[in-house]
């Protein structure tokens, strides 16, 4: 069944600096169209929430990098070893724990990947991005468990 809804989204710069997105939708007078129309408009209304989209991205970086480190560096891709994730979701903040079964490491010994010698390297940017994009990072003593804290606003 093809959708009978005519739909259009446009971003307009209204006044100085504040961009307003305009969504328009034209539907025939059929109550069978209501559910789809409502879902479509709501999706666009909520997508406009910039701070949420930025939080989504910061979560993506934090989780992707920590999981990759746990799997590749910690567990050395040994499929019999597990990685455990624990997320504590509170109204104001999110705490993400990622724990592997590896030997751990000393995070203070990891150099910044920005120097002229390092910038041409193929790795070493994961922890750096985590530190830049989350609000706080902690490790356990062994170094096989990272805790990343993100404030929701």
């Amino acid at each position, binding site marked *: 069944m093809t959708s009978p809804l005519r739909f259009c989204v446009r971003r307009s710069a209204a006044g100085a600096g504040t961009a307003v997105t305009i969504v328009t939708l034209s539907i025939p007078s059929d109550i069978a169209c209501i559910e789809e129309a409502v879902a479509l408009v709501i999706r666009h209304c909520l997508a406009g929430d910039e701070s949420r989209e*930025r939080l989504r*991205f910061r979560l993506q970086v934090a989780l*992707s990098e920590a999981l*990759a480190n746990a799997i590749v560096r910690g567990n050395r891709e040994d499929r019999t070893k597990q990685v455990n994730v624990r997320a504590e979701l509170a109204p104001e903040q999110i705490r993400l724990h990622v724990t592997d079964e590896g030997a751990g490491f000393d995070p203070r010994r990891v150099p910044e990947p920005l120097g002229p010698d390092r*910038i*041409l390297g193929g790795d070493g*940017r994961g922890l750096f*991005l985590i530190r830049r*994009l989350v609000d706080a990072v902690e490790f356990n003593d062994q170094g096989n468990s990272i805790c990343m804290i993100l404030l929701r606003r």
Partner: protein
Amino acid sequence: MSFTQSRQESGVVVFRVDGQLVVGNRLELKDLIQGALTAGDRKFLLDFSHTGYIDSSGLGALVTIARQVRERGGEMRLAGLNDDLRSLFELTKLDTLFSIADSAAQALAGF
């Protein structure tokens, strides 16, 4: 996740990254571009307009690939990064290493 390869009349080879460029698929992209280098291509454009995410391994792969291209006398440009992805290049100072255009069209215009 996939890579779509196409060739401009000007000889520029365009790779479009659909989905993500991450630890799980970066080697595929490396292989594709090494293959093109071996075949004699020297101008590459990576189009990220359909890319949702690049992780640090993906960034690292781009650095390595760009170095190989340069060693063979070629050039690699990037285009179509959304604001979030561009911020990863800025945080890691990789924006100083790459030629990054807003759109593939803009990157191709000057190639």
